[in-house]
């Protein structure tokens, strides 16, 4: 199948510091591709190069057959970009904002009105379209922020943390809408700090760290990388640091990190069977006040590959 997006060997250096090194991947039509990485890993730089905001030092980006460097207009016409911030005009109404971007992006005059109404329906804001943006709730702003990227019917939608600061109801609405777009054949690149969103939306995920892709594959393929290990979340009351040091030496534990003042996370093969040993290891050092065993997931994979949690 022809890819909607093909990027190869993307690199960017700022004053001798490598922000992105040899990043490359493809996204097919109707595929949602997740881009995960801790803060400063190079996600935003990568996305900026994909949407043409930054010129890569090396590498190519081809969108729908158009080379972004050689024919930026054609390539950008196929990209919808949803920035992390609400990149709209607060003094304009929702409808005025959408109309502005329709005209800016060159939609024929006779199509503008109809397309604006379509997008307002799509994001569920037709009834609030004539209210100024600064009267919208956080969730409504996020929805119109996505809507503005859909106006010119892009083949590829790139979303940078599209649900930050959104209430659960709006988040569900946004994710439902994105799933419909993917089902209709749109390609998606999605970054988020919410692992459950990535697991729900994305069929393939790349984990980026220190500017490079350290792992890529389907959720199943990535989870396999941690060898089917379980994640054990412990809440301790006592000397947490000493307990953590003891747990690191426990057979079967492959990762052990402190996630808060009283919490510790372990990655362990057959974790549920290891639980009695875990409790006895910390006995006399700290009391276990809560425990949760989670089967292998992307969070565990991420921790395994990057040594940090996604929200660090």
């Amino acid at each position, binding site marked *: 199948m022809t890819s909607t997006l093909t990027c190869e060997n993307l690199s960017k250096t700022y004053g001798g510091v490598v922000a992105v090194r040899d990043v490359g991947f493809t996204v097919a039509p109707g595929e949602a591709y997740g881009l995960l990485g801790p803060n400063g890993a190079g996600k935003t730089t990568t996305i900026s190069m994909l*949407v*043409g*905001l*930054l*010129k890569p030092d090396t590498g190519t980006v081809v969108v729908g057959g158009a080379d972004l460097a050689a024919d930026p*207009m*054609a390539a*950008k*016409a196929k*990209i919808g*970009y949803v*920035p*992390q*911030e*609400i*990149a*709209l*005009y607060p*003094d304009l109404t929702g409808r005025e904002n959408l109309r*502005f*971007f329709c*005209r*800016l*992006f*060159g939609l024929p005059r006779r199509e503008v009105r109809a397309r604006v109404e379509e997008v307002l329906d799509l994001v569920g804001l037709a009834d609030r379209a004539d209210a100024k943006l600064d009267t919208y709730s956080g969730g409504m702003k996020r929805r119109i922020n996505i809507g*503005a*990227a859909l106006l*010119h019917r892009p083949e590829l939608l790139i979303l940078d943390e599209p649900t930050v600061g959104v209430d659960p109801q709006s988040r569900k609405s946004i994710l439902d809408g994105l799933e419909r777009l993917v089902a209709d054949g749109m390609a998606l690149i999605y970054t988020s700090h919410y692992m459950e969103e990535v697991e729900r939306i994305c069929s393939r995920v790349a984990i980026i760290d220190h500017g490079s892709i350290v792992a890529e594959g389907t959720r199943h393929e990535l989870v396999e990388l941690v060898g089917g290990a379980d994640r054990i979340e412990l809440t301790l009351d006592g000397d947490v640091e000493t307990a953590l040091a003891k747990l690191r030496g426990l057979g079967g534990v492959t990762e052990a990190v402190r996630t808060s003042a009283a919490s510790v996370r372990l990655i362990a093969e057959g974790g549920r069977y290891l639980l009695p040993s875990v409790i006895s290891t910390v006995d006399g050092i700290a009391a276990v006040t809560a425990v949760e065993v989670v089967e292998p997931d992307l969070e565990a994979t991420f921790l395994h590959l990057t040594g940090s949690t996604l929200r660090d």
Partner: protein
Amino acid sequence: MLRSLLTVSALELRTRVRDRTALIIAIIVPVAMATLFGVALGGDDPPLRATVGIVDQDGGEFPAGVRREVLASTELSGVLTLRDLPGREQAQRALDAGDIGAAIIFPAGFSDSVGAGEGGRVGVLTSADTPLAGVVANAVVDRISSLVRARTLAVRASLEAGVPAAEVKEFVERNGAAGPALTLENDPMAGGRVDLSVYYGAGMAALFAFFVVGASFRSLLIERKQGTLDRMRAGPIHGWVPIAGKAVVGFALAMVSVCVTWGSSVLIFGSTWGDPVAVFTLLLAHVLAATAITMLVASRARTDAQADGVIMVISFVAAFFGGSLVPLYTLPDVLQTIALFTPNAWTTTGLTGLAGSGAGLASVALPIGVLLAIAVAAFGLAATGFRKGLLG
């Protein structure tokens, strides 16, 4: 491309109309400025209606030259009056009594001393009550001083070459080495006949053009902060569209602003700015230069607040050195030289020249050329700055 640019411009204009800044900066402030200067300063330049006393204890060619030139000058006729006074004390009393605005004192033997290559010293009496009359008297003396220096140099060179002292005066004059004859030119920058309301009105218009254009580029940096600029640039438009769209509105509003200042001054107070085509072209060139300079600042600024501050500083520095706040002729020579690097100086000089002479477009070709050169240089630097920063 053009449609995208007009879309950005339309939104910018709409925003400026909605928040009333367009109305304030393009209409209200220019009318207010014209009114303020028309009421406060309307009419002819006061010092040129003043009387300057002459104390001629020399009786030689220099005081005669001053009288001759003042009488011969059509520009100064009926405006500047010379009054002969017998001595310094009488001149001082007349000055204290307000009968004269300033006095020039030629000491006895002055012309002979200069003719012998020994130089000479001319005295000037001025009063704090009539500062601009003092400027006129000093201007006359400055011109005499340059003649004296040229004559002294020529005489000394002739003496060194072996010309007998008794023949040196005749020798120097016969060989045309005495330097130029004394002339009093009409020079508005040095206190010529200018309606001060026009002078300061033009200066304020020149100053305010920077603020008007600066507001548009400030909004460009605000758009960068709020993310809308990146959203635009990620779309299928040329990267220059948002910048050009803002520049068009800033330029247009600044043109409206300076033209309203001009129109108000003419229509309300009947001031004469000179040939309309020349005035409009000069204002156009000034606004282009102001647009380019503020664009250059925006291309290098990191935040809208930083751009605001820098534009404010540049505007006032250019206004001060360019004669928008104080007349250029009151500045020391070195500052008048620095003024040549500001668009304000060329605009103010050009406009006051047009107002005072009735000349046409050709007479302001130089100021227009310099302003366009400033605009081209600043646009070039701004383009480089944007390519490295905003569009990098």
